[in-house]
């Protein structure tokens, strides 16, 4: 299996989602002064969306800081984004922004802390994705 890195603010929605996945994951810290994870192997990023009504500020500054490291970015394989459909077309926009900036696919979108269906799909999907990644790599 490849790695998993996520950001969750103190609302805890993404943290609850990741815990429900039951996979080992590194958390991007909330405090700008805390040490930042720097993965050096392929990983998937899970992040919430913070856009205003015009889509500005969709990606949390701490996630931007994390991705600003070129070595980290080189190992990013895909992004899973969360949000709230109440934001209409801007739902889970952080995933689209990161996908475009880093040229990786958006794997999945979910709302708030996700549903059991979301958990099942992401668990199976990540498993399948890493298997194909590592089988083609050999």
């Amino acid at each position, binding site marked *: 299996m490849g790695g998993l890195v996520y950001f969750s603010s103190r609302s805890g929605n993404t943290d609850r989602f990741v815990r429900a996945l039951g996979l080992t994951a590194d958390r991007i810290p909330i405090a700008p002064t805390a040490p930042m994870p720097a993965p050096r192997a392929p990983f998937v990023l899970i992040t919430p969306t913070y856009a205003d009504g015009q889509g500005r500020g969709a990606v949390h500054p701490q996630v931007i800081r994390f*991705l600003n490291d070129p070595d980290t970015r080189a190992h990013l394989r895909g992004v899973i984004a969360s949000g709230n459909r109440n934001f209409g077309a801007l*739902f889970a926009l952080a995933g689209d922004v990161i996908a475009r900036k880093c040229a990786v696919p*958006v794997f999945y*979108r979910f709302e708030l802390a996700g*549903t059991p269906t979301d958990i099942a799909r992401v668990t199976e*999907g990540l498993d399948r994705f890493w298997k194909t990644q590592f089988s083609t790599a050999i």
Partner: protein
Amino acid sequence: MKDLTHPRAVPRAVNWNRMQDDKDLEIWNRLTSNFWLPEKVPLSNDIQSWSHLTEDEQRLTIRVFTGLTLLDTIQNTVGAPALMADAITPHEEAVLSNIAFMEAVHARSYSSIFSTLCSTAEVDEAFRWSEENAQLQQKSRLILDEYDAAANPLHKKVASVFLESFLFYSGFYLPMHWSSRARLTNTADLIRLIIRDEAVHGYYIGYKFQRGMERLTGAERQQIKDFAFALIFDLYEIESRYAENLYDCVGLTEDLKQFLHYNANKALQNLGFESLFPDDLCRVNPAIMAALSPNADENHDFFSGSGSSYVIGKAVATEDEDWDF
């Protein structure tokens, strides 16, 4: 004789350069940048569409909007001010004052819709209906009882999140339904602005609720959780009857109920709780989902091959200066 009763304490001046909770600033910025007024939406473009609705459909729509007006009025005049008294930080009070005002804007918006599309007599009839409708009065009563000044601050927040993230949706459903059929599309645009605001309100109040829960013992937390689930059960019972009462005449009740389950789960998630309704009771009509978030395909799932794999660049604002790769 000198008055010996304690006068109201002088509050400390609010200093936004000394934050105790960064979420206050984040939400303040979000809410103020999302500010809007109903005049921004060209509601008069819906006049022709309105005339194509049947009399029953028109009456239903006006009634649904008076029901929403009542909830916004409660949140504007009682709910948000009641939460202010429990605020932990001075910035939280400021955010709540924004929430209170936006609820007034929402309530005012429905009257803009009415004055554009309906006759005074129809609207007066609907406001009378809202005062007499048993379910509307019951759900208001349940929420207002928790807004009592003496109530537990966390009970107030639970009631507030249920109003913001659950009770509105028996009403929001209808304009989304019309919009999915290319009816009243400008009205739907206005409702989407309200829906966006309510998401932030529910999220923020739920966040403050979770901070309050952290200060309690395990047993106390369990009590609050039991209270929350009991309240959502009671509200759900009322909402089910409200739905039947209003929507049976157009055959949409069962479709609406899926949407209610879905939103009840989201309200509970805002409080940090697990879902109540299983996924197979939350099969929201895809047309309603699409009306809610156009362009956000319902089941984007790269893993299983549905949805677009690479996202094609949409015209979205990003701050390039934050992204010096």
